[in-house]
């Protein structure tokens, strides 16, 4: 029988429910920990049921931060993360759309050469060229700025490839019809190609936003001014800065706040996210 039998299904559900529980567990623990007063963490085992201090803890991290350890209030860091993520996302999408358009819809000298230059960025993640990239950004005076946080990360071979692939599937006749209808290249791009790419743009938006929000090493290096701290790197400062043992209730409140925006983006745009992910890499 190819159909599923009952015991098999029962077993599968069992495995999945256990699996989901394990996958969720760390975040559950974090949420629980963020609702307890500081005293809970001094002795014994971490709590597994919510405590009474939720409001107070979140208020503390959002408005005060931990000034003693040099971490600013979370509010500002959340904003910085948002600005950085949006700048990276919009930047990546714009320049990738334009380059993919050039590569697919034009024939010109050195086309392959440019394609390879873009392709090279795939091979050079920021982590492997970290010192010289830092030097370039420092030389350009872009330390402690949003430009420094975002621009060096906006070149994207992945997005360019995805758009290129998508443009190749757009029927030839649409462009021909547009030409017969009197549309030049940029008009075709704006009136036809962009509206057609909207699902792909949205799907990539989700992935790029998460990529941008989750940047860690880069902001860690180029921001020394707490004004520009982003939330993900800020957590590390909270964990290691100051006291010998981290203030777990505040750290976990921060963790929850830092993880929430990208998780919400994924949950609300799940279908687009899945599409974006599996089609980018396919």
């Amino acid at each position: 029988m190819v159909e599923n039998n009952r015991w098999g299904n029962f077993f599968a559900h069992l495995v999945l429910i256990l699996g989901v529980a394990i996958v969720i567990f760390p975040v559950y623990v974090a949420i629980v920990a963020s609702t307890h007063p500081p005293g809970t963490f001094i002795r014994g085992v971490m709590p597994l049921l919510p405590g009474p201090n939720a409001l107070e803890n979140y208020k503390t991290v959002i408005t005060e931060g931990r000034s003693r350890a040099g971490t600013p209030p979370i509010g500002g860091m959340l904003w910085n993360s948002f600005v950085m993520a949006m700048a990276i996302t919009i930047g990546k999408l714009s320049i990738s759309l334009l380059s993919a358009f050039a590569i697919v819809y034009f024939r010109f000298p050195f086309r392959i050469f440019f394609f390879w230059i873009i392709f090279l960025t795939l091979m050079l993640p920021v982590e492997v060229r970290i010192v010289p990239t830092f030097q370039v950004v420092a030389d350009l005076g872009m330390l402690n700025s949003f430009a420094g946080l975002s621009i060096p990360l906006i070149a994207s071979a992945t997005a360019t490839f995805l758009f290129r692939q998508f443009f190749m599937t757009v029927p030839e006749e649409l462009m021909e019809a547009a030409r017969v209808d009197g549309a030049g290249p940029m008009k075709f791009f704006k009136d036809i190609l962009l509206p057609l790419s909207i699902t792909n743009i949205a799907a990539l938006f989700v992935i790029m936003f998460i990529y941008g929000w989750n940047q860690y090493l880069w902001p860690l290096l180029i921001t020394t001014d707490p004004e520009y701290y982003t939330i993900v790197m800020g957590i590390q400062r909270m964990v290691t800065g100051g006291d010998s043992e981290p203030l777990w209730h505040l750290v976990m409140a921060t963790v929850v706040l830092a993880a929430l925006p990208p998780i919400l983006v994924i949950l609300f745009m799940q279908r687009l996210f899945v599409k974006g992910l599996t089609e980018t890499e396919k």
Partner: protein
Amino acid sequence: MASITLDNLGKVYAGNVRAVTDVNIDIKDGEMIVLVGPSGCGKSTLLRMVAGLETITEGTLKIGDRVVNHLEPAERDIAMVFQNYALYPHMTVYNNLAYGLKNRGIAKPEIDRRVKEAAEMLQIGQFLDRKPRQLSGGQRQRVAMGRALVREPAAFLFDEPLSNLDAKLRVQMRVEIRQLQKRLGTTSLYVTHDQLEALTMADRLVVLNGGRIEQIGTPMELYSRPETVFVAGFIGSPAMNMLPSDYLRGQVAAEALAHVPAKADFIGIRPEDMALGPVQEGALALSGRLLLLEPAGAESHLHLRFEGMSDTVVVRLPHVPDVAEGSMLNFSVPRDKLHPFDRESGKRLA
């Protein structure tokens, strides 16, 4: 409205690949010309050259009195209906029709008038607010037609517009397109691979093969007097039977073939020109064994094996005869229904 003149038109792609050679066609004002041929014969390339979607590498193209070789498609005053319709999927039907007019800077009220008028003519008025994907194949086809109509161009170019429709709808749209074209009197160039579509729609049709014109003429001219073996085989279904003349000379009395040039290697006989029964006066007598009888309602197709000939011969009768498969049957062919061809040149003799 305008005439279109194709003067020694040719197309050579990069890498010296030749697609179209020496094409001369004078399309009269208001005429419907159908380009027909097997896939890869260059008919679409030729149409796209006229549209301005492919560059012209040889010869001159005139629309009206203007040489348009180097004009952009939008400047040639033509409208095109694409095979897959090429409707803008994200725009409503209304905007699909209006887009080209907007790009030309035509005033809003005028656009509105033309769109409404075209929609009326094509009975797509109630779909103007819909997106193309909400329409059926036939409706999309009408929208594609509408997009060409609103432009009020000098010429319509059709690139296999019916090939994505099912058989029934194809016949219906064929009639509609032809009626509309006759009513508007717009010069049209129509590409198809379907010889029946070509025969039924064309004022004149152009048979292309290997990038060259095989023959130009009215449907009846091409049907009754194909100038080449290729045209003879391509136009008409079932295809014309080609009998080696050596074989025929061995079968029938010499005087029956007296007027056929001695040089002829093949003699073509259309399936419907072979009558079942005793030989009539002055006609050619042939006999063969019935392999298969295909009744098709009003008519029937008989597949025959002639003694000493490898190819089967097909006969079309306007009725279903009462004959048994395996039996020997006699046919007669009027002498004026013989089409003599030369093997070497593929051309008709006499």
